[in-house]
């Protein structure tokens, strides 16, 4: 007799809570919370996309923030040149990210272990330096977004609440898509390759092209997160792609519980709330966060989801 996993229930409760944030914020007259949780959800999407390749694929990509940057720059650059159409911008964000992921992935996915970590890190930094050096788009300082992406007739992102629910909808959609991916044949192959690549090859799998595909999908999803982020902040800087961003996102995945899809969302919530609370306390909050993260990694490897006992049962 299998005990039904607690995870879907926990997820549903969590998403419901998120859906109620604007309502609660309205009642408490604290619009700041809508902003805060919208930002959290955007990073949750980024973390979720990383989990696909990290948690399920075992690919330790330290360069995932690059796609946040590419997505953001796609929107920003088009906006700068007068294209305000959200459909065009966001499509470019996704396509550009996918393309860059293809280029970087084609080289890095063949490698593994330490090499993979170093190479993804190096390429991200390259993009960061590229962003800094292009003066036209603000270089070091970045640039403002003239307006938020325009979706005439569909939604006005200027409305804080409407934008919030759009992000939530995308988060829910990606959670569902991710769930489908990892349990379909594609996902099973990726997970098998992570579990035992020698055995995977011995039974006839050629993991490279599937891992590359996963890498591209994850990059594209994160690119969309980047488009959302730049709309949220209304400001664009190369810092979006800084490798420490990658580290933060990775921490969200690990903290929440990697290989669970829901875990990264939890991780994003906890980490960003923690940052918010700590930074109000002291400007030197990173000195607390640093060791905290070290300890979390060392002692709570299965993440919060693991601690809550909401892990998947075998055969799920």
């Amino acid at each position, binding site marked *: 007799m299998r005990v039904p996993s607690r995870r879907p229930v926990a997820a549903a409760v969590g998403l419901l809570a998120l859906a109620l944030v604007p309502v609660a914020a309205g009642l408490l007259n604290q619009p700041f919370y809508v902003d805060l949780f919208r930002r959290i959800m955007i990073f949750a999407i980024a973390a979720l996309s990383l989990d696909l390749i*990290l948690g399920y694929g075992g690919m*330790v990509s*330290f360069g995932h923030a690059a796609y946040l940057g590419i997505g953001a720059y796609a929107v920003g650059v088009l906006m700068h040149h007068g294209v305000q159409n959200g459909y065009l911008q966001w499509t470019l964000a996704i396509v550009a990210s996918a393309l860059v992921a293809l280029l970087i992935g084609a*080289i*890095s996915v*063949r*490698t593994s*272990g*330490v*090499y993979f*970590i*170093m*190479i993804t*890190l*190096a*390429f991200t*930094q*390259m993009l960061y*330096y*590229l962003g*800094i*050096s*292009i*003066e*036209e788009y603000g270089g070091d300082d970045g640039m403002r977004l003239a307006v938020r992406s325009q979706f005439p007739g569909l939604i006005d992102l200027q409305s804080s609440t409407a934008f919030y629910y759009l992000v939530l909808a995308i988060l829910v959609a990606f959670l569902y898509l991710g769930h489908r991916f990892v349990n379909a044949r594609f996902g099973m192959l990726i997970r098998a390759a992570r579990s035992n690549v020698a055995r995977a090859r011995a039974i006839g799998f050629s993991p490279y092209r599937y891992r590359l595909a996963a890498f591209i999908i994850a990059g594209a999803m994160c690119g969309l997160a980047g488009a959302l982020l730049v709309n949220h902040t209304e400001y664009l800087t190369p810092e979006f792609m800084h*490798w*420490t961003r990658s*580290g933060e996102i*990775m*921490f969200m995945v*690990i903290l929440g519980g990697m290989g669970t899809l829901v875990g990264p969302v939890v991780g994003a919530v906890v980490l960003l709330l923690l940052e918010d609370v700590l930074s109000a306390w002291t400007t*030197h*909050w*990173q*000195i607390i*966060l*640093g*060791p*905290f*993260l*070290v300890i979390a*990694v*060392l002692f709570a*490897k299965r993440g919060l989801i693991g601690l809550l006992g909401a892990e998947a049962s075998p055969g799920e």
Partner: protein
Amino acid sequence: MTLLLVLEQVLNGLQLGVMLFLMAAGLTLVFGIMNLVNLAHGSLYMVGAYLATTFYQWTGSFLLAAALALVATLGVGIVVEVVALRTLYERDHLDQVLATFGLILFFNELIAIVWGRAALYTTLPGWLSGHVQVLPGVRYPVYRALVILVGLVVAGLLWVLVARTRLGMLIRAGASNRTMVAALGVNIRLLYTVVFGFGAALAGLAGLMAGPIYAVQLGMGEQILIQVFVVIVIGGIGSMRGALLGAIVVGMVDTLGRAFLKPMLATILSPSAADTAGPAIASMLIYLLMAAVLAVRPQGLFPAQGRV
């Protein structure tokens, strides 16, 4: 673009190269022997730079400050190894990456608390400022020439150490045969601490020499660390030879690229296009080089024998 200018930039490239080598050697040693990915290696570099600057302000003697900074960084390295890193040797690389990333945040903030967030600038003592004639008609800053010299000497000493001594033999036997090494009666724990300390000292040396050339600021460790990664990927993991050659190549390509790419592009593109494309591509050069090497030789140019 006179010959003199080119020579000067070649020397600058060599100078960057030896500094990258010092960092790469330390990282390679630690990875090769303890199978530890240490992202906080750059933090030790930063600590070396900050300490050297402060000690110089206190003592007024550049050499004394350098010596003190070296010893102090070595000490910091050993403390970090004993307190934080010992548990990581058995862990997988992901854990190591995350834990040492946490250390980076910690160090950056610690430095910010003690020294503030503004960059520090060092001045050089009289005897180190000024120029020297390295070749007939070629004048080069004394300090940078000294850095090159120190770097090459250390590289030579490292070669002797690794190729000729018992410790070096242990280093080469390394992580690939931990049980054999232990069976030789070597205290593994002590060996690891010594190796890590040594790596920390190399990073500290690079850091304290870097201070007067580059700005001493938060995040400087990570900036150079990523270049060091490129060196290691190009040169091949686990190989000293690869680290040295990779470092020189990367140092040269980066320096010469930044100096000459824009003027070179200006001959074929419009000045404004070259103005944008030049610095942009120059900053990407070493990464493009890395990509090219990986495409052709995925294990790097001189991968260590018997090591992955």
